[in-house]
Every structure is written in structure tokens, then in C-alpha cells.
């Protein structure tokens, strides 16, 4: 068996033991949502401040995306490790054996890593997708087109996330998608209203 196939099989085995898939899916949706909304905040802030340089928007956007990624990874790793260690301790109190070096212990550690990677990459990638139009500003030359396009991409990403969650819960995907868009629109309106206090 090739090393990659062996690794995938092991990961599948760990997934059965530590139920990684479900929690990773939850983290993915929750944090991709965070990534998009944070980026909406960055865009509205830049737009309100009248920033007309795509480079500035990209720099602030990328730095923010990076920070959410690190925050997601770090937070999830320590939370997940602590929770999983506690579960393992409880299980050990039943089996009266040290489970650290067993398949269960390894699955538990793998779960913390996989889940935190998902938690870090989901908001980072979601934020990057929203920023994408600014990388292409030179194509249309007008930065405000990039702003509008980015906000449209953000709403599209929110709809896709809502539809994804709707598909999981077997609800009407159009409705769950629209509910997510509602959060994006609210963030836009609130961000824009800040101009009133300037």
C-alpha cells in the first residue's frame, strides 16, 4: 500500500474513532462565516474612509485574514486539545489503562490538529476569496468596482455557506442561504452607519 493511501486509511480510522468530520464541518461553516463578515467590516471601513488604493485594501485585508487564520488555528487547537484530553481522561478512568499511546490517543491528537487546521484555513480562505476582486482592480481600473464586486462576492459566499448548512440540515437551501445574506447585509449597514458619527 502506498504511503498516501496508508495515511488516508489511518485518517479514516481516526475519523471513526474521534468523530472528526462532524466537528470539522461545524468549525468550517462557523469560521468561514466569521472570515467573510470580518472582511465585510474591513471593506466597509476602507470604503467609508475613502481608501482609493487597491494595495492598501489588499494589505489591510490580507493582514486581517492572516490574523483570523492564526486566531482560528490557535484557539481551536488549545480548546480542542483540552476537551479531547478531558474525554480521554474520563475514558481512562473506566478502562484503568493509559490510552495515550493507543489508537484512541493518537486519534484524539489527530482530531485536534485536523480540526484546528480547518478552523484556521476556513476563515483565511473565505476572507481571501472576498478580497479577490481587489487583486484584479487593474483589469477595470476603477477601485469602487472592486469594492462593489467584493461585497457581492461576500454575499455570494454567505449564501453558499447558508446553502451548505441547509443541505446538512436538509432544509430549504435557498432560505438558509438568504438568512446568511441577512447577516452580511446587517454588517454592511451597521458599518456604513458609523459614518454618521464621523
Amino acid at each position, binding site marked *: 500500500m502506498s504511503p498516501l493511501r496508508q495515511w488516508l486509511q489511518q485518517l479514516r*480510522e481516526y475519523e*471513526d*474513532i*474521534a468523530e472528526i468530520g462532524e466537528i470539522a464541518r461545524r468549525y468550517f461553516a462557523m469560521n468561514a462565516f466569521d472570515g467573510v463578515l470580518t472582511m465585510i467590516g474591513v471593506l466597509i471601513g476602507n470604503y467609508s474612509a475613502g481608501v482609493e488604493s487597491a494595495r492598501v485594501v489588499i494589505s489591510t485585508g490580507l493582514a486581517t485574514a492572516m490574523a483570523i487564520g492564526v486566531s482560528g488555528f490557535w484557539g481551536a487547537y488549545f480548546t480542542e486539545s483540552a476537551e479531547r484530553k478531558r474525554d480521554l481522561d*474520563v*475514558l481512562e478512568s*473506566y*478502562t*484503568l*489503562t493509559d*490510552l495515550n499511546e*493507543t*489508537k*484512541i*490517543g493518537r486519534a484524539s491528537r489527530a482530531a485536534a490538529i485536523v480540526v484546528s487546521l480547518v478552523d484556521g484555513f476556513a476563515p483565511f480562505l473565505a476572507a481571501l476569496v472576498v478580497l479577490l476582486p481587489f487583486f484584479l482592480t487593474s483589469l477595470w481600473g476603477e477601485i469602487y468596482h472592486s469594492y462593489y464586486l467584493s461585497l457581492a462576492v461576500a454575499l455570494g459566499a454567505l449564501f453558499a455557506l447558508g446553502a451548505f448548512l441547509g443541505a446538512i440540515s436538509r432544509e430549504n437551501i435557498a432560505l438558509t442561504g438568504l438568512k446568511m445574506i441577512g447577516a452580511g447585509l446587517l454588517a454592511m449597514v451597521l458599518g456604513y452607519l458609523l459614518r454618521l458619527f464621523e
Partner: protein
Amino acid sequence: MGKIRRLVLDVLKPHQPTIIEWARQLSDLEGIDAVNVNVYEIDQKVENVKVTVQGRDISYDGILEVIQENGGSLHSIDEVVGGALIIDESITLQDHLRTGG
């Protein structure tokens, strides 16, 4: 050296990996022809299983390794059969007296 042909073990194990995975791993061991894993008691976090393995030349150490690797703990060895043939225990007078049969 004499060969072990059948082993019956009492094991406490977490719910995961499941007994399907246990049976699969045990039957992958060298010298084993048949495996039976039977749950007889379930708790909130663990379950008690009776593991029966039969084969041409069973490695006790190999079985112990699978049990420990999967988080199980061996409670007792309840039956061992060795030699060229597999024999069951003989019914004696005491057994009849005990069961009233």
C-alpha cells in the same frame, strides 16, 4: 512448541473502535482462522466483550497487542485449547450435579 488453537478472553473496551474493527484486526493476525467478538454488557463509555479466536497457531502476544492498541484491557483468559485437535471441555458428574441435570 505446542500450538494454541483456541482462546477465549474477557475484555473491557471503549465503544470505539467498534467490535467490527476489532474482529477485522484480529482476523488479520497470522495463524488465526476465525474470530468471534461478543458484547455481553454495555456501560456509558465502555463495553465488556467475549473474544473467541480459533486458528492453527495463535499468537497470544499478537492478540494482546491488538487489544491494547485499541484501548482494551484484558480481564481474564477464560479458555485455552492447544494441540493438534480442538477439544471442548468434557462434561463430568460434578457438572450434572451443579446444574441439576
